[in-house]
């Protein structure tokens, strides 16, 4: 009797130990499996992209079907134009809200706005496209760069609001008190001391938001619409790199598929460079604060 209890105990202990060891492998397999998928995707992107990329891609307009060559110069320029327009919408509202939430808002109001920004962050990007279509494209009677920039801009607002609030809040209260003690009104303290101190962090937040909307396609489908030529004014349809990648990818032509891969690698490099730049701002900020 005693013996069998002992063997049962040993068996259970062995089973528990094996289970314990096995799970380490299962769980690490999950993590490294995902890395494998990442490398497969980036690998395809890199190989296909680099072999189809050439100088023409950056300096030429798209060619009609059947003609070899051509590029997406207008798409690259268009994406930058759209991002500039988006900054004009997203940064004032986002930064203003962030600063207000950190410096002035009472608790209840701040919570409501924060919650609404989180909700806004979760709204599918195509819904922003519909909204921009209703409030910009319909009244202006046509697709335009302005409506595309507006759609991307309002998508940036919630992200910038949250990050800039966070970074403004991190400014040490002593800096504010020092300013107030000198008799400077609070609004000057906010503008001249608090915001400049948090500037590196705020810039990082803006860059991250920019990287996020740079690759967005869905909100541009029926706002910026795309254009095979150089756009002459902001009230006309404008080309954008993600849109061109989309249109070329779903086309039946091999030559366009190659262009789509080239566009994709330029797009991902753009997103990664903006993201990396953002990290650089965070690092320079940390150096500043640790050097004190």
């Amino acid at each position, binding site marked *: 009797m005693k013996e069998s209890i002992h063997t049962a105990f040993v068996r259970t202990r062995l089973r528990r130990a094996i*289970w*314990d060891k096995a*799970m380490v492998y299962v*769980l*690490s*397999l*999950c*993590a490294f499996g*995902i*890395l494998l998928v*990442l490398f497969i*995707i980036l690998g*395809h992107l890199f190989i296909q992209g680099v072999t189809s990329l050439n100088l023409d891609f950056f300096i030429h307009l798209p060619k009609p079907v059947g003609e070899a060559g051509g590029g997406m110069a207008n798409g690259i320029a268009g994406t930058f134009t759209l991002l500039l327009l988006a900054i004009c919408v997203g940064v004032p*509202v*986002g*930064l*203003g*809200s962030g*600063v207000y*939430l950190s410096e*002035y808002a009472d608790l209840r*109001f701040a919570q409501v706005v924060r*919650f*609404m920004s989180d*909700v*806004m962050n*979760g*709204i*599918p990007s*195509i*819904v922003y496209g519909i*909204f921009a*279509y*209703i*409030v910009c494209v319909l009244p202006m009677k046509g697709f335009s760069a302005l409506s595309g920039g507006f759609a991307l801009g*309002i998508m940036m607002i*919630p992200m910038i*609001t949250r990050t800039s609030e966070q970074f403004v809040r991190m400014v040490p209260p002593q800096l504010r008190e020092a300013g107030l003690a000198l008799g400077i009104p*609070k*609004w000057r303290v*906010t503008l001249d001391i608090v915001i400049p101190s948090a500037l590196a962090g705020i810039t990082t937040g803006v860059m991250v938001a920019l*990287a996020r909307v*740079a*690759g967005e*396609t*869905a909100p541009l*489908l029926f706002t910026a*619409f795309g254009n095979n030529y150089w756009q002459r004014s902001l009230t006309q349809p404008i080309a954008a790199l*993600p849109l061109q*990648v*989309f249109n070329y*990818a*779903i086309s039946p032509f091999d030559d366009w598929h190659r262009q789509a*891969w080239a566009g*994709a690698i330029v*797009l*991902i490099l753009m*997103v*990664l460079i903006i*993201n990396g730049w953002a990290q650089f701002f965070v690092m320079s900020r940390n150096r500043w604060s640790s050097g004190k």
Partner: protein
Amino acid sequence: MSRHDTSDIVFRRILAVFPISILILVAGIFFELIWSSLPSLNKFGVGFLFSRVWDPVAENFGALPFIFGTCVTSLVALLLAIPIGVGAAIYLAEYAPPKVSKTISILVDLLAAIPSVIYGLWGIFVLVPFMRNSVQPFLGKFLGFLPFFQGPNYGVGFLAASFILAIIIVPFIISVSREVLIAVPSVYKESAYALGATRWEAIFNIVLSYGKVGILGAVILALGRAIGETMAVTMIIGNNVVISPSLFSPGYTLASVLANEFSEADTSMYLSALIEIGLVLFLVSIIVNILARILIWSVTKGPSEIIK
């Protein structure tokens, strides 16, 4: 002194315009969507959600095939992504050495930064042929007795879209669950060790059950992403208005019908029906997000406030 006060009040008022504009914006999106879909709302009523007819020529519209497609692709994507995502999060939070964990987390964030149109491109040229030539014949051969894996094999369809969605949402599940798991106070785990639990037993019985609400929040957040994901799905789902039990069948989702047909809508009723689909998408994503926030807050906020 009073000059300072007035200038301060003016500044404060000006600044307050911005956060208020956020509230107005959300309300405005809601209002505009309802206003523009009124013709369709009036004509089809609630039946819009339950009708399976989508006939732009006869101006008869129902959203059921798209709701079906969104539900199927999101749920299958969750089924694929949850075990792998939570498993990876446990590995990163509990097992991996700090440096490995940090490196993998950065790479996972990289996965989240890839624009969805690039996932779609990769899907068209790599995933779809792979599904057509390997995965779907295999599933048809061994699980073909199930209605989910029958029918012609095109490569594009619900299954391919679910795969790409799973890849897109996995980074969200990992990063949020990892945060939730790290927030579990280590005292609980140490108590389990003291009682003789193995590492896995402590994680499974203590850490996971403490963090399950937060992980559920992460999953619901990922569900929100999956429902709203447009480009990648549009590019590989096959764009076919159908309700079919087979995952091999080409289909449509709420978001992808918008992407495909919105700029072609030639009549006001057609446009209004599409905007109503946008309204459905808006409402569903808001409900899902609110639910997820509440769940995540209830976990990560609690402990961090105690520490303060």
